[in-house]
């Protein structure tokens, strides 16, 4: 359309600005990739060279031997984040529905309690949290990394899903309710199917949160090597004498690749879902 048309200097400026913006976003990844290709001798070499003819993919093969559990760490990260997401959604969906649709005593106060959880991170409550994990017998299990993750993601999940549910028209629910359907039936059979896009979006956001923030709980509550997620497992490339930087970068990039690919394609639905949640009635 005419309103969307740009003159060519405008286009040029847009692309130039985009290039600067994306360089900022992607620079660390490019640097990680360059490092992963460099032989160790080349890494500790001044002056700095961007390109070298000594580049090779050797580190991508050597890393599996250097840290035999690497595959396990990659899997653990994905497994922990998935478990956190599934559990969080089980808690979030009913609660978000209650806040979006129902009137009940202490509604605002209890919502405030949930949201105030956002003010804490694991790092603030680490000491007593360690004791709770100990009391529940969860230290050094997957649960010790899953349970706190769920607790800190529930509030944001409720907040996001609530605003999405508020946008779904009430008429269908009310019709079902008038026809004598029970509240639980209405929730399961009428609201949930309508809310699937919103649930997906919130689920994706929760997964991202769970995947991004597993480091602290892992290094504090778990000492079993087989259970460590990737960020904690990468420490094994740090030796007493040398740090295998190139293998560490190769392992980091390889480890996040599966999740990254999935999310590159989910991005479209994420924005669409957030938009749908943001449109006013």
């Amino acid at each position, binding site marked *: 359309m005419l309103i969307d048309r740009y003159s060519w200097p405008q286009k040029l400026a847009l692309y130039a600005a985009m290039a600067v913006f994306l360089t900022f976003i992607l620079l*660390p990844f490019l640097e990680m990739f360059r490092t992963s290709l460099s032989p160790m001798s080349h890494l500790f070499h001044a002056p700095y060279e961007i390109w070298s003819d000594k580049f090779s993919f050797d580190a991508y093969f050597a890393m599996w031997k250097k840290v035999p559990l690497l595959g396990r760490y990659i899997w653990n990260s994905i497994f922990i984040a998935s478990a956190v997401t599934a559990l969080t959604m089980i808690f979030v969906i009913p609660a978000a529905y209650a806040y979006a649709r129902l009137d009940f005593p202490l509604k605002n106060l209890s919502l405030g309690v949930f949201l105030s959880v956002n003010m804490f991170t694991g*790092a603030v409550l680490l000491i007593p949290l360690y004791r709770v994990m100990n009391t529940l017998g969860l230290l050094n299990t997957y649960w010790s990394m899953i349970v706190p993750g769920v607790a800190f993601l529930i509030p944001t999940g409720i907040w996001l899903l609530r605003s999405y549910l508020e946008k779904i028209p009430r008429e269908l629910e009310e019709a079902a309710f008038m026809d004598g359907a029970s509240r639980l039936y209405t929730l399961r059979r009428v609201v949930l199917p309508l809310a699937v896009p919103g649930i997906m979006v919130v689920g994706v956001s929760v997964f991202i949160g769970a995947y991004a923030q597993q480091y602290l709980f892992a290094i504090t509550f778990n000492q079993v090597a087989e259970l460590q997620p990737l960020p904690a497992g990468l420490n094994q490339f740090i030796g007493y004498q040398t740090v295998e930087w190139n293998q560490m970068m190769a392992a980091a990039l390889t480890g996040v690749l599966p999740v990254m690919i999935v999310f590159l394609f989910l991005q479209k639905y994420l924005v669409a879902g957030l938009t749908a949640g943001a449109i006013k009635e």
Partner: protein
Amino acid sequence: MANATQTKDQPTVRAARRGLSEGWFAWMLIAPALLFIAVIVAWPLLETIRLSFTDADMNSENWVGFANYEKMLQGAKFLEIIGRTFFWMVLSVGLKLIVGLIGATLLNAAIPGRALFRMMIMPPWVIPIAIGCIGWLWLYNGQFGFASGMAQRLGIIDGPFEFLAYKNSAFYAAIITDVWVGTPMVSLFFLAAMQGVSRDLYEAAWVDGAGRWYRFRRITIPQIMPVIVSMALLSAIWTFNSFEIIWIFTQGGPRGGTTTMIIDTYKTAIGNFKFGEGSARAVMIVLILGVFSLLYLKVLDRVNKHYGVK
């Protein structure tokens, strides 16, 4: 939107829904989440408050009243740390909002390649923060890193510059990384909000001869203001408590130059096993953020009213 049938039906439905049964049903729905939070967050929080009045360490625990608080507030460093934490928060959140807004505007522009660009901003957000930090750590390396290497090549500096070895440069290096981690999410939320703005508004303004900048200032910004304001609060709280980046980069150094409240708390409690003093610091964080959020929500309320959001 409302039609005659709806207005007739609604009071009946409302009436049927009010009363005990709806309240109980609602509480049944939120109870599991609330219980979970009670055990994993509320109880540790109460425990933190209790510990803050003791001299707890690995072995013993005695009641000491307000001694931890007195010691903390009398320490010359503490006010400095609070000031630094607010500076960290304001600067980082401000940059995230500005860069996020610019990013969202660019990603919203109708240019070829848009879908690809939107994909390319995802990575910093979807990878573990600790892994992003490893990339930046190498980037900031004085001898062999990109930043120092490039600056030397361009003749900006003469010799290697170790970014994380000096108070100021380490602080701003951590800020840049924090902005990098936070920007994609802010951009995507702003982008989603921009796409929710009705096209009619833009077309009407366009027909009246309003230019792009005018439309951005007078339509886009007011329309997405509620999202900007609530994103700013969430982002402020997260940034205030941002832990991993500083911890991985400098552990609060050099000479305390990057020590924010959360780092100070962690160091005192976990690093030196002074659980009592660490807990007093944790309580301070909660108090400060609590007051900050309340003030902020007042502002949010006013902004929403001003822009006609319920």
